């Protein structure tokens, strides 16, 4: 472990000096994961909300499956997406394997169940609270979904952050479908895996420190935004 401190400080200075290679990796990580979370929100929120208000046979089973999918192993997701996108797979003609798009798809599969399950929980509680009001206004259950989603928006941001946390920290799926190709699909986590396998443990650790920094920064920005939105809401009320 000799030279660990010096290697670590060298890695940290790379970060502070704004090494362009490093920052393009950081940027790609953010792009892929933010995009994945946005798509997951578009799918997961309506699905979660619909599951919260609708009543139909098999609903309980669906909820159980959705909750279980929150713990879907990323490697398995990576493998499934690989099999779909491989040239021998059904979607091979799209030539998406080893592109950032493939990584986004894998992360959407991982994140959507989290967003959907957390949304369902939030909306179910809210729907109970509003049920009399909505009924007196003659709003049907499904028609109340947009209203409920809008009123729960601050709580839903937490669901998105949970999804973002899973996406940005994930390595098993993106390394399979992205291939960890330099300048094309190399993101923070796959770089950390690569540097670890080269035995550059200090550099890997320094990259891990940036990853944590990003997670903290994103959470701080979002919580500031939502706090401001809340205050605005109070002023209007």
């Amino acid at each position, binding site marked *: *472990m000799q030279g660990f401190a010096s290697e670590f400080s060298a890695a940290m200075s790379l970060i502070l000096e704004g090494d362009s290679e490093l920052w393009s990796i950081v940027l790609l990580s953010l*792009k*892929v994961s*933010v*995009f994945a979370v*946005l798509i997951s929100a578009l799918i997961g929120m309506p699905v979660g909300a619909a599951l919260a208000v609708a009543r139909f046979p098999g609903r309980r089973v669906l909820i159980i499956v959705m909750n279980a999918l929150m713990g879907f192993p990323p490697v398995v997701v990576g493998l499934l997406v690989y099999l779909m996108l*491989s*040239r*021998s*797979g059904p979607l*091979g*003609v799209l*030539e*998406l*394997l*080893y*592109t*950032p*798009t493939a990584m*986004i798809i894998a992360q959407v599969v991982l994140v959507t169940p989290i967003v959907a399950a957390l949304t369902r929980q939030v909306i179910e509680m809210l729907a109970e609270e509003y049920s009399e009001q909505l009924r007196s206004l003659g709003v049907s259950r499904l028609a109340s979904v947009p209203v409920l989603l809008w009123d729960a*928006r601050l709580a839903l941001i937490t669901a998105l952050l949970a999804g973002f946390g899973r996406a940005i920290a994930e390595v098993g799926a993106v390394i399979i479908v992205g*291939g*960890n*190709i*330099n300048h*094309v699909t190399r993101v923070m986590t796959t770089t950390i895996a*690569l540097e*670890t*396998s*080269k*035995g*550059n*443990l200090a550099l890997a650790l320094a990259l891990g420190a940036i990853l944590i920094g990003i997670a903290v920064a994103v959470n701080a920005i979002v919580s500031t935004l939502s706090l401001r*939105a809340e205050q605005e809401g109070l002023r209007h009320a």
Partner: protein
Amino acid sequence: MIRKFVRAALVTLGLTVTPAVAEAPFIVVQSTTSTQNSGLLDYILPGFEAETGIDVRVVAVGTGQAIRNAINGDGDVLLVHAKPAEQKFVADGWGVERFDVMYNDFVLVGPKSDPAKVKGGTDIAAALTAVSQAEAPFASRGDDSGTHKAELDHWASAGIDPTEASGTWYRETGSGMGATLNVASGMGAYVLTDRATWQSFGNKGNLDILVEGDPRLFNQYGVILVNPEKHPGVRAAAGQRFIDWLIGPDGQAAIESYKLDGQQLFFPNAR
């Protein structure tokens, strides 16, 4: 406000993510971790890319996985080191033709304390026999990679089936070369590695080269174009151009000139 923010984010991301997908000509090379982790490809590829404008995208995995990915058509060129498996790949029709590219050698690395007393030996089979008799920890790739296949061949030539001791002194990591070296470094185990990965490995700890120089430790790399008749999506022209360059004078000279800490890691031997 949120909607405006989301739309702005989508536009920014959409503009910057998609161009990376559809752009200049490129090929996907399925290769092994040793060519990438040693820095060889980072060193030689810019020369080819500048000359041809073809971007080379390297997916570095174990030889076994690289071959399977190529069989699925998920690569245009295969650059690996397990000659029998490569020949089978071509014989089965998945590849067009196999060419020798370069070689280096495997070395047996182990703890400096050397509990099996193999240091200085040049006979890999004798060294492995000593390791098994001492029941000293041995870290195996266990991942069907080129190095793993070579290691199993050496055990076979020593007349030993180490998998019987799996979980005791024989430990299969199921990971890449670097990850396995990290394991060996952590538990003071013996491990068979290609010299290039060892040379460039940054976490040597208490490990050192103990056995080298056995002719059987020879490690040949080959390159194969994935058969476009099996997978019409294969970028055959660009892939062939890369192979021609790699086994031609320019590529061979580039391989020859790559040195790490003053030591040459790969020796070109295309015919």
